[in-house]
């Protein structure tokens, strides 16, 4: 049985429906990341799990027990907040032990627990300080210490890294992952950063406008996005989504992309089974930038490379890679080239398309054509 | 035994539920004493006074209903029209002069003045004083026998004359002087806070666009101080309508009734002239004047907060 189970969860503020029937489950020891653009309802969802906000209908179970009407302090959860929410008037040690104090744990036991957590997070030297005297990274650690010390059934993280600078964020991400692997606790983690989601999660849930778009492992979400929204949201730079048409030439399917003078036709070597029914109809072709390369840079293991001449419009070197923008089907399309490509703007060069990794979406429903 | 155990469990569950319900209502419970006090002592009293204004009360409250008769009498009283006229003179001058001085001082102080830390508290300290103290100080300082006029005569300016405080026509202007002295520093502080809140990059951009200092203030800075103007106006207007202590201490409404204001009128009609019904109706008029300024202001402020 699942450890955390959310069934048909609805949440309304007045007439506004923020969560529209969300179903998610996660096994014990899992790391569930809720991801989506701002306003998608992911933080509200986390708050309802915590019990900080009530729900309109549905059911939330933690470890087999319905907690709908249980006070947050009785759900056996701990939460790390975006602003860290450290009590400004208490020392670091008092901050960490406040939850234990409220539960009537003796002073000696509290002291022992503080020391244990402080050692784990390497913040022993900070225990006497006030939150105001700490750096962002140190506050982050204290906030985690406050959650860890309670040894709860479930950890909730609300965008915990979004207030850190880029380098520290990467370090803390690694640290959270290490802690999770070491302690084996169950975590629900909210972020708007899809890279954080990819690196940390065992399960990703993508939300948009209060509706769950897809739940799956990071690999499933990345390589089999359920719809155009997920395809567009996960990955950076985002997946190229090109208006195209399916052509059926004596049994083999091809995708036709209208270009200025003539349309570009690319073969589809492994068509999804229902693509046949789209013959002669419009589809949206999805292809990630790393699957559009220069000829030499194409994945040597890829079996189906198609070539097509494209006109270079913008060249953006980033160091390791160079992103090249061209036009396909009236849309800007980004490809990821090797560093020293030596392309210049206006040039017409052949691009390599990894046709084994393309996606098709229905332009009306925006769903994946499987 | 099991039955008793079950009963015990049931009672404890009821107890827990009651505690949790209490928790839900606790905040409202905690707020309620204050709210009840306000409802009773502010809004209940407003209703009560409102009723008195339509009653035949004289020396003591009485509940004979006379409709709007008191208001009719009120507006036929010469004392009341003097009070309203004085309020108009006092209110307009007080608001305009305080705003001009306050804005002027704020702009000057904002020009990186050395000694701002000394000057600012000097401009502001009158606000900490009681109007009675202010009234006492100005009463004797403006007294022609010992004050300013006397000093000028001693200094050799024999023809100098400044006896406004003794003059029926001019006494109201001495109230303006003392009130401006007390409040203009406060208005300065409001404008200064507004000036300091203006993004400096906007000023730099305007200078690069070629605005002179004068144009900078007239076209950019002063329009951006709109909220400060509004706040200053509301605060000064409501202080003017409520003005009471200062007049009592400075002129006691005199000479004669020359510096009568609605607040002093209300007090004397209600408590010394045994015309409580008329006194109550004058209080209602005062409330309506203030409400017409404050309610739109509060409404817009609270609405802005919402969005």
């Amino acid at each position, binding site marked *: 049985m699942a450890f955390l189970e959310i069934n048909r969860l609805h949440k309304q503020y007045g007439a506004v429906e923020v969560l529209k029937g969300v179903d998610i489950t996660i096994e014990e020891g899992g790391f569930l990341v809720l991801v989506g653009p701002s306003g998608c309802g992911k933080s509200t969802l986390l708050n309802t799990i915590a019990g900080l906000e009530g729900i309109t209908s549905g059911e939330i179970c933690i470890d087999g027990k319905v907690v709908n009407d249980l006070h947050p302090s009785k759900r056996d959860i701990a939460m790390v907040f975006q602003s860290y929410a450290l009590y400004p*008037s208490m020392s670091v040690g008092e901050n960490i032990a406040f939850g234990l104090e409220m539960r009537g744990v003796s002073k000696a036991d509290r002291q022992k627990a503080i020391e244990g957590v402080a050692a784990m997070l390497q913040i022993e030297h900070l225990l006497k300080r006030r939150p105001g005297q700490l750096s962002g990274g140190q506050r982050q650690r204290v906030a985690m210490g406050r959650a860890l010390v309670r040894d709860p059934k479930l950890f909730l993280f609300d965008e915990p890294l979004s207030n850190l600078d880029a380098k520290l964020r990467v370090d803390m991400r690694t640290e959270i992952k290490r802690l999770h692997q070491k302690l084996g606790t169950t975590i629900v983690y909210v972020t708007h950063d899809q890279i954080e989601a990819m690196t940390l999660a065992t399960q990703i849930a993508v939300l948009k406008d209060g509706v769950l778009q897809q739940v799956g492992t990071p690999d499933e979400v990345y390589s089999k996005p359920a719809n155009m929204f997920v395809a567009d949201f996960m990955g950076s730079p985002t997946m190229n989504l090109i208006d195209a048409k399916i052509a059926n030439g004596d049994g083999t399917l091809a995708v036709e992309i209208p270009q200025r003078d003539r349309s570009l036709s690319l073969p589809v070597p492994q068509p999804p089974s229902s693509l046949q029914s789209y013959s002669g109809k419009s589809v949206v072709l999805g292809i990630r930038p790393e699957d559009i390369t220069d000829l030499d840079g194409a994945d040597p293991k890829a079996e189906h490379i198609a070539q097509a001449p494209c006109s270079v419009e913008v060249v953006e070197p980033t160091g390791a890679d160079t992103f090249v923008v061209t036009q396909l089907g009236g849309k800007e399309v980004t490809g990821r080239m090797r560093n020293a490509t030596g392309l210049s703007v206006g040039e017409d060069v052949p691009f390599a398309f990894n046709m084994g990794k393309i996606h098709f979406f229905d332009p009306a429903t925006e769903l994946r054509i499987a | 035994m099991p039955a008793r155990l079950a009963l015990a469990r049931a009672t404890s569950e009821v107890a827990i539920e009651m505690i949790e319900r209490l928790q839900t209502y606790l905040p*409202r419970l905690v707020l309620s004493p*204050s709210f009840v006090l306000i409802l009773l002592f502010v809004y209940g009293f407003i209703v009560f006074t409102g009723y008195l204004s339509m009653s035949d009360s004289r020396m003591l409250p009485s509940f004979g209903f006379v409709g709007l008769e008191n208001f009719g009498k009120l507006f036929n009283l010469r004392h009341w029209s003097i009070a309203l006229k004085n309020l108009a003179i006092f209110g307009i001058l007080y608001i305009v002069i305080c705003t001009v001085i306050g804005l002027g001082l704020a702009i000057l102080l904002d020009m990186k003045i050395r000694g701002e830390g000394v000057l600012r508290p000097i401009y502001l300290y009158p606000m*900490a004083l009681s109007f009675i103290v202010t009234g006492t100080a100005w009463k004797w300082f403006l007294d022609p026998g010992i004050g300013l006029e006397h000093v000028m005569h001693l200094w050799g300016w024999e023809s100098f004359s400044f006896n406004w405080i003794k003059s029926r026509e001019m006494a109201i202007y001495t109230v303006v002087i003392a009130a401006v002295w007390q409040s203009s520093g406060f208005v300065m502080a409001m404008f200064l806070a507004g000036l300091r809140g203006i993004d400096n990059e906007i000023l730099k951009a305007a200078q690069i666009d070629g605005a002179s200092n004068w144009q900078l203030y007239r076209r950019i800075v002063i329009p951006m101080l709109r909220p400060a103007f509004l706040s200053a106006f509301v605060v000064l207007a409501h202080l003017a309508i409520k003005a009471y202590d200062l007049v009592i201490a400075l002129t006691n409404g005199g000479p004669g009734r020359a510096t009568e204001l609605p607040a002093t009128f209300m007090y004397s009609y209600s408590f010394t002239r045994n015309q409580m019904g008329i006194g109550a109706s004058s209080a209602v008029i005062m409330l309506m004047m203030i409400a017409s300024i404050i309610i739109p202001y509060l409404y817009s402020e609270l609405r802005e907060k919402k969005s």
Partner: protein
Amino acid sequence: MSAASKDTALRTGAIARAVIYSVLIVFAVFYLLPLFVMLVNSVKPLDEIRQGNMLAFPQAFTIEPWIQAWGEAQIGVQPTGLKPYFVNSLVMVIPAVAISTFLGAINGYVLTKWQFPGHRIVFGLMLFSCFIPFQIVLIPMARILGLLDLAGTTSGLVLVHVVYGLGFTTLFFRNYYDAFPTELIRAATIDGAGFFRIFRRILLPSSGPIIVVTVIWQFTNVWNDFLFGASFADFDSQPMTVALNNLVSSSTGVKEYNVHFAGAILAALPTLIVYVVSGRYFVRGLMAGAVKG
């Protein structure tokens, strides 16, 4: 007032700056003049004021007017000086300030962190009560105080000042707690703290500045009040402002200007000291009272 220095690159010439400084100094003199007049004339013999120059320093220095004002001057019918009234004011101010500040803090806490349907209306009603002309409540208040057997007592005045101070104290704390991060309340809720514990352990320890602002504001207002004191107090409870006015405006006998000035300074002293010691908070209170939100 923000301490952030603003680098306005206004170009002002030497003459312009001289004019600016002159204007600023002239106004400083204007604001200081009455205080100067009160001070120098409170240490002059009466003759020197009548014949001499009000703006001149004393030729014969005397503290007799101060002694008179404090302990001997005729106020009303009794030659008690201002001393008993000073005590009356203190006995009234301290509980009035303490109670209204405490209630304001609790109200502000509820109105920001435990919002309930209709909290906006409740706050609006409390806010409007700050601005009413008190004339509208004088008559019923006199009656209620009579009914409660509080007429003419200090307790009655404390009640009045608490009620009509609540709007402002609530406003101050509401605006302060509004900016207090709600995540802290949530964290404490998960940690298991309840309504009062969150207030006492999380909010109150961080409320130092707003408590100072509120206490100063209330202290100044209650100490300086005249209308309620004049309306609802008798000899045992009359505050300093009423006594000063009685002293100055008594129509019998010689006008002892020097005693009046000494008395006026005595009445002004507590609030002036508060202002000098904590002017920053005083100004902040004024601004908070004027600019909402």
